[in-house]
């Protein structure tokens, strides 16, 4: 019996990670998942977020331990490279699996 059947038709979504589930953060995590690291300009361009939004959402992802920001220099210019941490990668894999499971268990 699936969870949806056990709970009378509504699957529990408790195991959906709320940190990743926000559309803006999901875009950021997907972009970071497919690269080793990227700078903020790349992420702004790829996600379509504003600088302020990106900064806010990266802060939340960093607080959750999912991303890290390595501050460095490219020549004389500051360039921070952002990447997913190992727990961040694992959390995204788990999030994908959980979402697939949730979609499978949605009632018709």
């Amino acid at each position: 019996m699936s969870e949806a059947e056990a709970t009378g038709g509504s699957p529990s979504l408790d195991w959906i990670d709320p940190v990743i589930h926000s559309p803006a953060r999901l875009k950021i995590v997907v972009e970071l998942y497919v690269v080793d690291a990227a700078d903020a300009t790349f992420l702004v361009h790829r996600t379509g977020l504003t600088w302020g939004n990106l900064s806010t959402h990266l802060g939340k992802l960093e607080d959750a331990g999912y991303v890290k920001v390595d501050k460095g220099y490219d020549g004389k210019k500051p360039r921070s490279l952002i990447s997913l941490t190992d727990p961040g990668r694992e959390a995204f894999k788990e999030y994908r699996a959980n979402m697939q499971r949730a979609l499978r268990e949605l009632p018709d």
Partner: protein
Amino acid sequence: MSNIDLVEAERRSFRSATDTGLWDLRVAALASMFAIVPFWSATLGDFWSALAYVPVLLVVFGVLRWVRERHVRPRVGVARFGAYRRGRLRRFTVVMLVVNVIALVAGAVAAVRFDSGPTWLYPFAFGLSLLVMFSAAAYYLEIPRFFVYGLLLIGGSLVGEELFRQGQVTHHGYPVVFGSSAVLIATVGLIRLGSILRRALPSAAGHAPELDDV
């Protein structure tokens, strides 16, 4: 959500970082070499005339590098790709090396063994090697229009040879074929580059100041 295609996402990210029009401009610069050098070979010979063009290429490549660092990177950003992409680029380098060596050896052998005037073999073999190189570039760099460039150059080589045989062009048609190809490829590159340069810079300093506080 189950439809997030991570392979496609990686491909789009890679193209976003690399397909900036600069590759087209580099290819156009190389094609222009084949258009201009034949005019010098009568006085300098094939080898020295090609060598004389190297400084021109170095200047063009230097300018393109400057454009990339000062104008493209601040707008496109920087991404480091993973093992899959690095492996793909390594294979691309090996394929290009092998094709170039084979083309050079074949060219040298043909020059020694078949030194009896132009034949269809030369333009066909030359165009074929270009087609293989551009196909490899299209596949490994995921820029499909490079395959079209390869077709353009092999087709152009054969048309140029035919026009040369009819006495309508000089130098086996190279100046016409490669000159027009270079202009076409450079135009595509400039359009692509222009679309990127129209993007606003993230800040006057070329980075996102807010993110220094993340």
